[in-house]
């Protein structure tokens, strides 16, 4: 009873924007159809239409050949469609089981929620996924990766016939990705139609049967996965050949001088971490999600308290109690979550760039020198090629890649004396074309003498960009690899090193 889903002539217009234009394709049961395209190509819009969040302005959706109209997510669910969005739609203060069964809670004969049955059913699904999560745990207390898995299980539980995943692996580590792919394979074998959106090439080739490529809201082609390669895909997505992203990067070798040295650094979630970063060096920090990479960055930057060990900046011992002190000493942090932690979405590009230096932008009258601020912002826009008509445009109106460039511009403009740049997942959710630009900028900054700490979950980019890679596991460093030995296999081995032993003896590996 394989189902099919067909988009026929779908179009969507917003005031001044043509988000989708005459999109036609068919997703068949028992197959995984990958949906690819740069940011802004219309993938998310298409999923919103599929989920009934937004109506299409033109065209129709056919389920099993029947024209079906969706006016709300409820309609879509009734039609057997589940969409798993990039942004998690969970109730953080409720338990895992309540989230899983929110729309169909089991009740006993008194009409009260039957928590025992709920627990049992939730546990069944969790076990089926091979996860180690307590059904009664509060969702907000779970790691981001596990929250994402709860989101996936929620859709799995509904047993929908058509399931769309929007970049499900972004917050997941390799281990969870494996689990997720097993589930997708299972769903595929059960005859379900899967739509899979991702920016990650390797995943697309691993999981999909067919690839639909969108560009600027138009359907530019459908490829059979087995008969294509990433070069062809990228060319189709960006409309030009960007060649091998990594081999064309211009870079130079790191210098002798040590900029940052961390000795036995400990914080609430980090234990005895030690490493050095040299001037002009890009040091990759790899590991599974939850390995403590972000926490190392936060401890260095003065956000999380340091409970042990020492930090040396240019040979001088430093202790920061607030990001301000770290910034004044020449450290900058581009946080993982751009929108929540990096930017003020409803303020201008200029404000977001000059935010750390407002106090230095004073005229003799003590009033803000807006001319100078504009000058700094204009320069950053130019240096990083931020695509905007004006520095006074709100950052919320920019694409993810350009937003990231705004943050880079903030930390590396002429008003800053940044010596160490910490990048936490700087290319998360950014399209291929802009990614290449950002890689080149990172290399340029290193060439100019900046020390870069590069945190990323995407193995290919850490391996290809870093001069050296430090791998973390469970809050500690599990090994260090020079560029020559940096292969996906070596990094992964270190990232999961003792996990196999730990998994059988306890749940330490989960944390």
């Amino acid at each position, binding site marked *: 009873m394989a189902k099919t889903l067909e988009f026929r002539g779908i179009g969507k217009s917003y005031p001044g924007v043509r988000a989708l234009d005459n999109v036609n394709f068919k997703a068949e049961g028992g197959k995984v159809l990958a949906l690819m395209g740069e940011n802004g190509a219309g993938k998310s819009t298409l999923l919103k239409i599929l989920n009934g969040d937004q109506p299409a302005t033109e065209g129709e959706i056919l389920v099993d050949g029947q024209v079906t109209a969706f006016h709300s997510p409820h309609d879509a669910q009734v039609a057997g469609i589940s969409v798993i969005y990039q942004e998690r739609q969970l109730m953080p203060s409720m338990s895992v089981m309540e989230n899983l069964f929110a729309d169909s809670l089991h009740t006993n004969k008194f009409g009260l929620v039957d928590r025992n049955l709920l627990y049992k059913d939730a546990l069944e699904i969790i076990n089926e996924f091979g996860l180690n999560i307590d059904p009664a745990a509060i969702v907000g207390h779970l790691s981001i990766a596990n929250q994402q898995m709860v989101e996936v299980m929620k859709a799995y539980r509904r047993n929908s016939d058509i399931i769309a995943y929007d970049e499900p692996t972004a917050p997941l580590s390799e281990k969870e990705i494996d689990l997720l792919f097993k589930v997708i394979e299972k769903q595929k074998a059960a005859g379900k139609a899967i739509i899979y959106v991702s920016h990650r090439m390797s995943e697309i080739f691993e999981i999909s049967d067919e690839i639909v490529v969108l560009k600027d809201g138009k359907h530019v082609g459908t490829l059979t996965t087995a008969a294509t390669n990433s070069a062809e895909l990228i060319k189709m997505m960006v409309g030009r050949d960007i060649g091998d992203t990594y081999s064309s990067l211009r870079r130079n070798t790191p210098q002798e001088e040590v900029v940052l040295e961390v000795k036995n650094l400990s914080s609430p979630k980090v234990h005895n971490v030690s490493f050095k970063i040299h001037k002009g060096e890009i040091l990759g920090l790899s590991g599974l999600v939850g390995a403590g990479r972000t926490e190392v960055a936060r401890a260095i930057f003065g956000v999380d308290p340091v409970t042990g060990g020492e930090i040396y900046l240019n040979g001088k011992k430093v202790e920061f109690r607030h990001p301000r002190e*770290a910034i004044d000493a020449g450290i900058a942090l581009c946080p993982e979550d751009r929108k929540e932690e990096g930017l003020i979405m409803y303020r201008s590009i200029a404000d977001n760039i000059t935010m750390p230096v407002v106090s230095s932008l004073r005229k003799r009258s003590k009033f803000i020198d807006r001319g100078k601020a504009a000058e700094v912002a204009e320069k950053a826009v130019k240096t990083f090629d931020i695509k905007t008509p004006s520095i006074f445009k709100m950052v919320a109106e920019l694409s993810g890649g350009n937003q990231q460039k705004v943050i880079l511009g903030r930390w590396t403009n002429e008003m800053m004396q940044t010596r160490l740049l910490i990048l936490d997942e700087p290319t998360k959710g950014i399209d291929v074309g802009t990614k290449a630009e950002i890689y080149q900028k990172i290399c340029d900054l290193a060439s100019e003498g900046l020390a870069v700490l590069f945190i990323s979950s995407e193995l290919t980019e850490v391996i290809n960009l870093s001069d050296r890679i430090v791998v973390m596991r469970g809050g500690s460093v599990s090994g260090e690899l020079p560029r020559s030995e940096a292969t996906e296999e070596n990094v992964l081995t270190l990232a999961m090193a003792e996990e196999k032993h730990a998994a059988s003896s306890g749940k330490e590996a989960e944390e």
Partner: protein
Amino acid sequence: MKSEGNSKIKSLFQNKVFTLLCLWLVMVIVFSIWAAAKNTSFLQISVFKNILNSLVVPGFLTIGAGCLLIAGHLDLSQAAIGAFGSMVLATAIKAWGLPWYVAILLCLLLCCVFGLINGLLVVKLNFPSFIGTLAMASMVKGLMYLFSAMGNNGIAANISFLNSATAFIGSGTVAGIPFCIFLVVIAFIIFGLLMSKTAFGMKVTFLGGNPVAATLAGINASGIIILLFVLSALTGGIGGVIFSSRLSQGSLMALTTSQFTGLTAAILGGISFGGGVGNMGGAFIGLLILNTFQIGMGIVGVNPFWVNVFSGVLLLVALSLDFFAMLRQQKVLVH
């Protein structure tokens, strides 16, 4: 490109304040005609003097509430702290015989202490400001009764006092204009410049826009938020001092009608409830609109209970306008 963006921002800024000013003018015209139809008069100096006079006490409250609101917080204890301050002033002068300036300083100092506690509750103990200041309002109200009893042989009651200096602060005039009007206008100008032209004001706005991002960009959130809570309490205290100076009495009912005036005026004047948007100019005109409305309604003889109802409606209308503007903005952004 630069000048184009610049003028755009300027026109936007002017727009908000300009629209509010227009709204106020329309209100003045409507009341003039309405009053004429009722055989009274609205368009006269004494009415406007009256409006300005009525602006003084809530004006100070609006400054404190507005700055705090721009940073994304609110202070429900501001009026209670002001009422407490007014009682401290009366007790200090009447019962303790302190000189007027010492009494005022003591009163403002105590108010600042409450503001400091508010700030620490929110910053250090992570209380939502709504809850922390709600508890504070209740405590301060109780303390006010205790203070009143202290100055009144154990019985909580209004305390009247005589002092020529405080009488001048409350009701004295300079060149025919009440002295305290100068005070509030100067305060609005100073805080207007502070919020829109200085690095401090920018930081407050950034904090209101996204506290996490602002902190990670090196802005000292804790210090600024605590300072703003102290400012809120201080302006409440100044309001209380002027209130009791006008009556020459520490009143148990002080500022009860102004409980939410500061907040209402700030929101009416375009300061976003979520923080990060707004300025003092708007807040001032918001207050002007609110008070003109109330006094105008009184002159044309509308039942005062209905005036309260309509004040609420006015706020709802202003908020809906903001809401629709936001919706429009979001619609443009979704793509």
